[in-house]
């Protein structure tokens, strides 16, 4: 049991260390998020009723795409350099190691999205309630996106395809997360008891924590054959 957690912790720390040494990957998701976001005031016109009405949805959709983009290579690099073989033969089940990889990936690339989201809310002239509701909904939502996305990334590992095809596979799974994520922010803005939405997001997070690593491990084992 102790060896299992030691192995998972080692994977978590190595992935975090690798991400911090590569740096580009850390800034890629948040860079895409902020630049794509800045296009909306330019396209729609700053201020104004429209921007503030659609703002929460835009921020969530862009965060969702940023997570999806950053996930592209979560297993592919390990597959190419043979690290995946090592993970398969580790002292811990592959499912636990995938969970560790997702945790490191979320911390290294997606936590920044959560942190800059109040700024994003200012960009899109959101009411003040969004300044806390937006990061909080993303804090619960982006780990779900990472976990679900890992299934798509695992399915396509070794196939030589990624990117758009992963998006096609995973985006349908993202729909409920998007609905309740945006719902939470909107409810906070209009003072309609956002608690329910946050609880549902939390329930989805727990469910994906339990199930996504199982599915991703299944897909990875198939990819290795």
């Amino acid at each position: 049991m102790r060896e299992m957690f030691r192995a998972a912790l080692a994977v978590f720390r190595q992935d975090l260390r690798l991400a911090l040494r590569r740096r580009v990957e850390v800034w890629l998701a948040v860079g895409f998020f902020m630049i794509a976001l800045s296009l909306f005031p330019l396209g729609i016109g700053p201020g104004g009723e429209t921007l503030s009405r659609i703002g929460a949805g835009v921020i969530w959709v862009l965060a969702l795409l940023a997570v999806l983009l950053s996930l592209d290579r979560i297993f592919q690099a390990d597959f190419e350099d043979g690290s995946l073989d090592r993970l398969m033969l580790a002292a811990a089940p592959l499912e636990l190691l995938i969970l560790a990889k997702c945790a490191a990936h979320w911390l290294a690339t997606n936590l920044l999205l959560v942190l800059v989201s109040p700024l994003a809310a200012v960009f899109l002239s959101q009411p003040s309630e969004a300044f806390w509701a937006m990061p909080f909904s993303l804090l619960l939502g982006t780990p779900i996106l990472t976990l679900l996305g890992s299934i798509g990334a695992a399915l396509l590992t070794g196939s030589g395809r990624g990117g758009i095809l992963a998006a096609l596979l995973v985006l349908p799974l993202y729909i409920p997360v998007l609905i309740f994520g945006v719902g939470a922010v909107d409810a906070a803005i209009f003072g309609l008891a956002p608690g329910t939405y946050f609880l549902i997001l939390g329930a989805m997070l727990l469910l994906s924590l339990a199930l996504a690593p199982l599915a991703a491990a299944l897909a990875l084992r198939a990819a290795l054959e």
Partner: protein
Amino acid sequence: MLEVVDLAVSRGGRSVFEELGFRLEPGQLLLLEGPNGAGKSTLLRACAGLLVPQTGRISWHGRAIESRTVHYLGHALGLKGELSVREILHFAAALAGGSGRFDDAQRLMDLDAFVDLPVRMLSAGQRQRTALASLMVSYRPVWLLDEPEAGLDIHARRRLSEALAAHQAQGGVAIVATHNQALFNPTTILSFGP
């Protein structure tokens, strides 16, 4: 005792080998020889549990073999260019479980000169030595090595032979696919036909 019975593997609908079987007692070394593409690597991967055979079973002391029993080293070494050799050894030890035998592994593969360098700065032979050492930091009784001598100089090849001999003396078994038979001291040789 490692026992392989009636093993058949096919990939992409094409049979790689069928009705393959052998038995290794503690301390024995099986050498796989044969032309490229004959199925040596496939057999190693099947023994490691990295691919599922169509039929047959692979057992260790009478029970289905577990991933915890084997060390596998293929052509892709599983090293990250950004990490130093020392970091890789510590990671490998934590991942494989058991107590890390860093000094032994470092000495066996003679890593002292570059143990703090990142892997991307190493030569192919030094990488191979790092990968071999990353197996040796933790004890597992079954070694599955796919051309472990690739890129190694004469000195390192001798170290590899010594490491294998020490592993056998401890009661471990090894299966080695190679094109350099003279390097090893096999108990049995399995020849793959063309």
